[in-house]
């Protein structure tokens, strides 16, 4: 018996028997017009439209040996919409002062960064972000999204080809979406919503999204599952949430303070490169890399974000993440983030406060996590004012620092905060040449002053063209 399945509940079965032929109808010259219902509204509506049936499945168009094409050929029967989008950023950077990254324990990857002079890499173009995003919609229920990016072409210390995210959303209800895949971690607002340059008036990511929530190369993403959604609360108010379980694969793979010592550079001074030294823990999250062997253990990472749109243009968020961060899976990391966003009239005010706690092996191992950790607090505040739809000057202030609580003397902690603090001030302007027709294309220019404990200072200017399409 050959059976066909159609919409749920519609199962037809052929009995395999030839039906008794009906009496032969009259020749066409005498045929009566097609019978039609006296009133179309009298006809009970059938259960489903044939257009919902997947023809590819009907035809069994799975790939077989010798067939043309790849498995993609079997997808043609779906009524899916596919969109392609992208983002591009070109930076021009001019830097004066110590070229080395001013975070005290940041690993240097190439000799160029060890040379404290302006002859190497102080003036350069950088294709900061270049990404292609494919997004599909199937039956208004399933929404896969896949991105490719090749960021920082021009800065060979950072240049990488990446898949920054790849996931599928299944919309159960507007307030319940199931997400699975390689998911941008909902920590704060920048990582998930403002990472791409065309989404911010500023040319530079906050320091918190480089050294605390690693996002210098791409948004921090992890493999796992997530539930998310938005619940309207009446008027402009709403509550949004995201909760997830992931591998927690982003981990420290380079020893802190390790790397090749540049010729002539002093070792051990203020965190400069010392070849081969340093533990695989307690390092700068900006140097973390993803997916190592410990990700296969049962103890996963999890977290979430809750946000409240209290009024139009006012959003408050709280988020957290806990998981492992060392390649042996033995040390945990906790990230807490509070974010606020205010957008009204011509004013944009955004800020985040972040606290990272990294367990390390310290002398006080029996004293609990508070005295056995590296803490990394940081924050950023952005103020932008749109003088006109085209012109938006802004100012941003951010800082990150670290303190190792394994030292017994609490007074030393304050000293560490000061000595390890990287403080940056930015003033700039964003220009939207065609604010109505092309709202996602901006030209920006900013000046940055970055200091480490007031002693080492870097001045820089950055010009940027950023577009989303």
């Amino acid at each position, binding site marked *: 018996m050959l*059976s066909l399945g159609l919409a749920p509940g519609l199962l037809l079965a052929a009995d395999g028997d030839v039906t008794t032929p009906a009496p032969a109808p009259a020749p066409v*010259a005498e045929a009566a017009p097609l019978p039609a219902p006296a009133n179309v509204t009298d006809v009970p509506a059938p259960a489903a439209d044939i257009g919902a049936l*997947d023809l590819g499945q009907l035809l069994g168009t799975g790939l077989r040996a010798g067939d043309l094409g790849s498995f993609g050929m079997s997808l043609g029967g779906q009524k899916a919409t596919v969109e392609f989008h992208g983002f591009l950023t070109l930076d021009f950077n001019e830097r004066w002062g110590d070229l080395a990254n001013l975070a005290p324990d940041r690993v240097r990857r190439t000799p160029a960064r060890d040379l404290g002079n302006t002859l190497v890499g102080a003036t350069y173009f950088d294709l900061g972000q270049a990404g292609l995003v494919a997004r599909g919609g199937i039956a208004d229920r399933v929404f896969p999204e896949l991105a490719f990016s090749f960021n920082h072409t021009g800065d060979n210390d950072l240049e990488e080809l990446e898949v920054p995210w790849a996931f599928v959303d299944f919309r159960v209800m507007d307030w319940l979406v199931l997400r699975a895949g390689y998911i941008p971690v909902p920590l704060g607002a920048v990582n998930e919503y403002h990472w791409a340059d065309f989404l911010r008036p500023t040319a530079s990511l906050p320091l918190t999204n480089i050294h605390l929530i690693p996002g210098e190369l791409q948004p921090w993403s992890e493999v796992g599952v997530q539930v998310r959604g938005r619940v309207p609360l009446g008027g402009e108010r709403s509550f949004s949430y995201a909760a997830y379980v992931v591998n927690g694969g982003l981990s420290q793979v380079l020893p802190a303070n390790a790397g090749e010592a540049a010729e002539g550079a002093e070792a051990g001074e203020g965190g400069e490169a010392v070849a081969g030294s340093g533990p695989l823990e307690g390092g700068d999250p900006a140097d973390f890399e993803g997916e190592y062997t410990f990700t296969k253990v049962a103890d996963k990472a999890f977290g979430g974000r809750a946000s409240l749109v209290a009024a139009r243009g006012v959003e408050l968020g709280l988020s957290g993440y806990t998981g492992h961060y060392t390649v042996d899976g033995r040390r945990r990391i906790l990230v807490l983030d509070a974010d606020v966003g205010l957008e009204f009239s011509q004013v944009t005010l955004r800020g985040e406060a972040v606290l990272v706690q990294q367990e390390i092996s310290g002398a006080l191992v029996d004293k609990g996590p508070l005295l056995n950790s590296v803490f990394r607090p940081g924050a950023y505040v952005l103020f932008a004012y749109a003088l006109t739809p085209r012109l938006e000057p802004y100012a941003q202030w951010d800082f990150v620092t670290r303190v190792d609580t394994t030292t017994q003397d609490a007074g030393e902690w304050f000293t560490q905060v000061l000595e390890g603090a990287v403080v940056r001030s930015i003033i700039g302007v964003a220009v939207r040449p065609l604010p109505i027709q092309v709202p996602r294309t901006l030209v920006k220019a900013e000046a940055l002053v970055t200091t480490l404990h007031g002693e080492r200072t870097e001045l820089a200017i950055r010009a940027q063209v950023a577009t989303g399409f």
Partner: protein
Amino acid sequence: MAGLLSALPAGAGELSAEVRSVLLLRVLAYDRGLPARATGPGIPILLLEAAGDSASRAECAQFETALTQLGGKVTVAGRPVHVARAVFTDAAALGKALDTHKPAVLYVCVGMGPHLADVAGVTRQRRIPSATGQQPYVAAGLGFGLVEKDNRPRVVVNLPVCRAEGADFDAALLTLAEIIR
């Protein structure tokens, strides 16, 4: 959608009337010219059999039953399906029948081999797509066919004929069908 079209048993030959009915309606839904052609409240389908041919009459009857049963459960582009049969005598009579019924598609049953040229001439003149369950008929000048190959159902589209008959099939169908250019 629950269930899939199961693989045909070896040696099954032609597709069953039920399978063809599902495929016919599904293919029809891919025709972007359908709304302009079928302007009434329903989607009319006309089945054409050869005069005095019992095999043709049998296929026509089976297919009418299968389409009618399926039409009671599904719509095409949101509209119900209506099925009628006709017997071919000559091209002029066929033309009058098409003018009367104004079908969205003319399905040509087995046994119409000697009359294909006449049928094709009329359908192109009146821009009504033609379909069949016989692969040779598609190569000979009908619009599209619902056939069995390698134990799987297949849609064969004679693209030039379809265009001449006013069918404008979505690319999504054409990527799945076997195309005769």
